[in-house]
């Protein structure tokens, strides 16, 4: 038993744990909000809880349990599709890194490709395939397991964290930090700045689709000023 535990501990990437923990803090109130909404939803509670296992996407889950029963089923599915559309970009951006990974990883790992894990792992694509895999899977296991805990805690304890703390700002703070550390090339700076401006101008679009418009405008602008060779 001790040996198998030791083997598991040996698989854990310490950097991944260190990087994930601060990003897990803001997930606590989010999980609590979701738990409360699952309790209030017209969808039976066991199904609401299941979404944390099978969907594992906070914003889409929240929209789903809030809308379920209130609007048509197809509208709920389409809303989730729009909210999750940014994952297609994550998937495309990580595809070259995943291409040199084993097939089981390519099939399983996307299941936990949430904003936080994308943000952390896109900064590790230069690592060896083994190191990247260990880092990604450690982050994935942490976020996935803790998300289940937070969801259940939300159902049991309700909204225990006061909204006045403003912890909703926390993911934005950390993502801003990650963007700044990634913006070391001119195309990256242009991409990030354009995305900020265009997203801000399109905030009123329904279902947060301004996020996609802004992101795509950023990618396009970065592309236009990018003169670096591809293998750089």
């Amino acid at each position, binding site marked *: 038993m001790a040996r198998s535990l030791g083997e598991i501990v040996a698989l854990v990437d310490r950097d991944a744990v260190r990087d994930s923990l601060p990003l897990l803090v803001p997930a606590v109130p989010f999980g609590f909000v979701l738990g409360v909404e699952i309790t209030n939803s017209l969808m039976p509670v066991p199904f609401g809880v299941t979404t944390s296992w099978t969907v594992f996407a906070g914003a889409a889950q929240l929209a789903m349990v809030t809308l379920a029963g209130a609007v048509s089923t197809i509208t709920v599915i389409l809303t989730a599709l729009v909210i999750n559309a940014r994952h297609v970009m994550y998937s495309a951006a990580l*595809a070259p890194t995943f291409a040199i990974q084993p097939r089981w990883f390519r099939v399983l790992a996307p299941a936990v490709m949430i904003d936080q894990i994308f943000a952390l792992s896109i900064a590790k694509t230069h690592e060896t395939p083994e190191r990247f895999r260990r880092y990604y899977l450690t982050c994935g296991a942490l976020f996935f397991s803790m998300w289940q805990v937070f969801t259940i805690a939300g159902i049991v304890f309700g909204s225990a964290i006061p909204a006045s703390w403003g912890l909703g700002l926390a993911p934005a703070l950390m*993502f801003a930090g990650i963007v700044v550390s990634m913006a070391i090339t001119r195309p*990256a700076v242009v991409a990030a700045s354009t995305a900020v401006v265009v997203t801000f101008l399109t905030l009123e679009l329904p279902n*947060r689709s301004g996020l996609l418009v802004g992101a795509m405008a950023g990618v396009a602008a*970065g592309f236009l000023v990018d003169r670096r060779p591809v293998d750089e």
Partner: protein
Amino acid sequence: MSNATAFLLVAAVSAVTYLSRAGMVLLLAGRELPEPVTRALRNVGPAVLAALVVTFVADPEEANQGVTAAEAIAIVAASGVHWFRKNLALTLVFGMAVFWVARELI
């Protein structure tokens, strides 16, 4: 909502979510990508994360629409700390502290 409808809804959204995350990875694996595509993909990270920051801060579905001065100051402060220290825990603590102080002062 009936159990059958709930089951269908959860199954459909789960499938849609997985496909959005795995689609490109499985589709592009083992293929040589055209140079312009590789070039464009390099900027996806900074662009999407920057767009997410704006969406998080100025969520139109939130009560306090738009970006407050305290939020903007906290974002700049957190970015600055992360640029120098590359430590996410420090970025979070410092950014939130700046936000709480700025919120009281402004």
